[in-house]
């Protein structure tokens, strides 16, 4: 065990820091889920990242990435959050579809999709859920029927992140008459294809965060199917692993938030009417963020040493979602009567981030599902 960075890692950090300091605008971009303009501004940022070769840092070089190992990735993320760089509109591509394509795609599919994903030319939405298939993905009802060399897609997807403004989407479709985990295929479709209707859904913070997608006889080439016909569930489980797992949740974001909280506490703690007992919560928030970071470093080291990611995906999900809520509740308690106010431009938006944090225990596999997974796969308790 050696908890110091190598000189190479330190040099890498310096390089990231320098590039970000030169390129991150002091004026925050409008949120990519808020308006078309915000979305396109973030696409431009993806292109800027790509121009500095900072776009898909964990992807292999052959696919347009930088081929970083996980410790470098963590350093990159730390600097990225430290610099308050824009959110990644391309997240579904970087962390979900990209790795899945690399694992399951044909050479032609990789050539067609990965470079445009890496360049920001095509931004991807996910289309996992359906009205009757949320945590229970095997309940998918949307269908795909092969006619010649085209699939005809029909169905209704919902809670699709980025779908309001993105270019492409991927989702599960089943052969008519198939049941549950069988007969499903993972298929890509352009969001502007004939027969596709996208209705944005507002989140409780008022942003357009998701969309529902209606597909009516949408025709896509059979080329757009990833893996074999009927292999969709298998691929999807691998992808859900990516989604639940390490990649999506950099510890840096919580460490930034914990530091902001400590700053808020320092600024307010001596004001009249502030509850001194909140000091314990400020310390707790710092501890939680540190625990999460140390755990991710440990996992990264294990993966580099050849281990496979296992149920950490589920324990991580529970831990970061709960720490995020606790951290933001502490901030609101410090703010007191100001907590309910939407933030002034430029200020840290505690209330909006709190509302966002409340989604943590719900999406990417609810915490109830995650606890089932931990109990059954990690502890070995019986399913039924």
């Amino acid at each position, binding site marked *: 065990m050696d908890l110091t960075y190598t000189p190479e890692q330190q040099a890498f950090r310096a390089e990231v820091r320098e590039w970000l300091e030169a390129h991150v605008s002091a004026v925050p971009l409008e949120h990519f889920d808020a308006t078309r303009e915000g979305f396109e501004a973030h696409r431009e940022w993806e292109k800027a990242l790509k121009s500095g070769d900072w776009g898909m840092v964990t992807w292999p070089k052959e696919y347009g990435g930088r081929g970083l190992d996980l410790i470098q990735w963590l350093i990159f993320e730390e600097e990225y959050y430290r610099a308050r760089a824009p959110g990644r509109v391309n997240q579904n591509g970087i962390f979900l579809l990209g790795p899945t394509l690399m694992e399951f795609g044909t050479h032609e599919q990789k050539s067609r999709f990965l470079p445009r994903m890496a360049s920001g030319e095509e931004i991807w939405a996910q289309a996992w*859920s359906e009205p*009757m298939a*949320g*945590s*229970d993905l095997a*309940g998918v009802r949307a269908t795909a029927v092969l006619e010649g060399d085209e699939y005809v897609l029909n169905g209704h997807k*919902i*809670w699709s992140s980025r779908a309001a403004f993105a270019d492409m989407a991927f989702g599960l479709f089943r052969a008519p008459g198939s049941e549950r985990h069988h007969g499903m295929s993972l298929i890509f479709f352009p969001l502007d294809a004939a027969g596709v209707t996208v209705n944005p*859904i*507002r*989140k*409780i913070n*008022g942003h357009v*965060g*998701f969309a529902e997608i209606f597909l009516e006889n949408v025709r896509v080439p059979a080329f757009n199917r990833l893996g074999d016909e009927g292999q969709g569930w298998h691929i999807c489980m691998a992808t859900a692993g990516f989604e639940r797992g390490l990649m999506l949740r950099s510890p840096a974001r919580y460490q930034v938030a914990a530091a902001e909280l400590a700053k808020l506490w320092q600024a307010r703690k001596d004001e009249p*009417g*502030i*509850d001194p*007992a909140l000091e314990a919560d400020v310390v707790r928030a710092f501890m939680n963020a540190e625990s999460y970071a140390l755990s991710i470093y440990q996992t990264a080291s294990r993966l580099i040493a050849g281990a496979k990611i296992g149920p950490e995906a589920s324990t991580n999900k529970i831990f970061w979602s709960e720490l995020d809520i606790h951290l933001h509740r502490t901030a*609101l*308690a410090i*703010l*007191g*009567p*100001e*907590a*309910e*106010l*939407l933030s002034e431009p430029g200020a840290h938006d505690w*209330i909006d981030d709190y*509302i966002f944090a*409340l*989604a943590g*225990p*719900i*999406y990417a596999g*609810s*915490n*109830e599902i995650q*606890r089932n997974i931990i109990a059954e796969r990690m502890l070995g308790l019986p399913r039924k």
Partner: protein
Amino acid sequence: MDFTLNDEQQMFAQTARQLFADTCTPDHWRRQMESGAVLDAERWAQIVETGFPLVLLPEDAGGLGLGELDFALIAEAAGYNALPDPLVESAGIALPLLAAAKPDSELLCDPAAIIAIEHPANPYVADAEAATALVLHKDGQAYLAAREDVTLTRKESIDPFRRLYRVDWEVAKAQPLGAVDWDLTLERGALFAAAQGLGLAQRAVDLAVDYAKDRQQFGKPIGTYQAVKHHLASAQVAIEFARPVVLAAAADIAHGDVQSRARVSHAKIVALEAADHAARASIQVHGAMGYSWEVDVHLFLKRALALTNSWGTPYFHRQRILHRIETQPLGPDQTFAREAEHA
């Protein structure tokens, strides 16, 4: 010793629940959110017609001369329906203060009049835009100003139905009301916030129960899963043990002693905690649905959040309970004891 509501009170509560249920449907909420209208004129007219704004006014001011317990039941129903209109702050808090300070105010003769109130406990004034007049605060003294004689600057709340304002005004354009009972006003503000909290909490649970009975996952309603059951059962337990505190606080508020203040504070803390707990459990049970604007659970979450820090923060109220612990006898025979008896 009788800890039950009388028939009249139960009928009263029933009337309020029915009126708000009929006039605050999800459709009403959405239309009002889209329009940004401060009041739903039709609903407000019906509210005025029931006499709710007169409940706490003395009979010789044309009021019903009822007490805080009666109004708390209305406030609870308002919470249950996330009532957007400023009934509680106007009729429950501002009007009784005005009636005490200026019994001959002509505003008291207009049951439709809305009075907003600036209180030292709150940094902003709620619903000032809809008010006919505002009770204002300066150096411990109260003033009354017409809406058109003050300048309002909107502060956006996370709660789409809370319209908060900073009020700029001049003493010259306001009518002095003298030294009013700001403390009693705070008691009422906290009590009725607590009562609303009970309603918010119960509605959040009820919405989740309805959803969980209906929504299928893995081939059965999600309400059959123990995790869902236990989330909602815990939320309901919090409500069950907040409600008696709110009712006792309402019944005792007039004593104005250390115990009654501690009980109001206790009610405020636990009722809003129950509301927050229930709203979060409800969002969790609703899953992604609970996180979308079109499903109305978020209204209850946000109202709970706003009321938690209005009329005294949880810390402020905790300190008042601590004061009761430190200065009054404790023990099982002290539940209904009064300061006067031990002073």
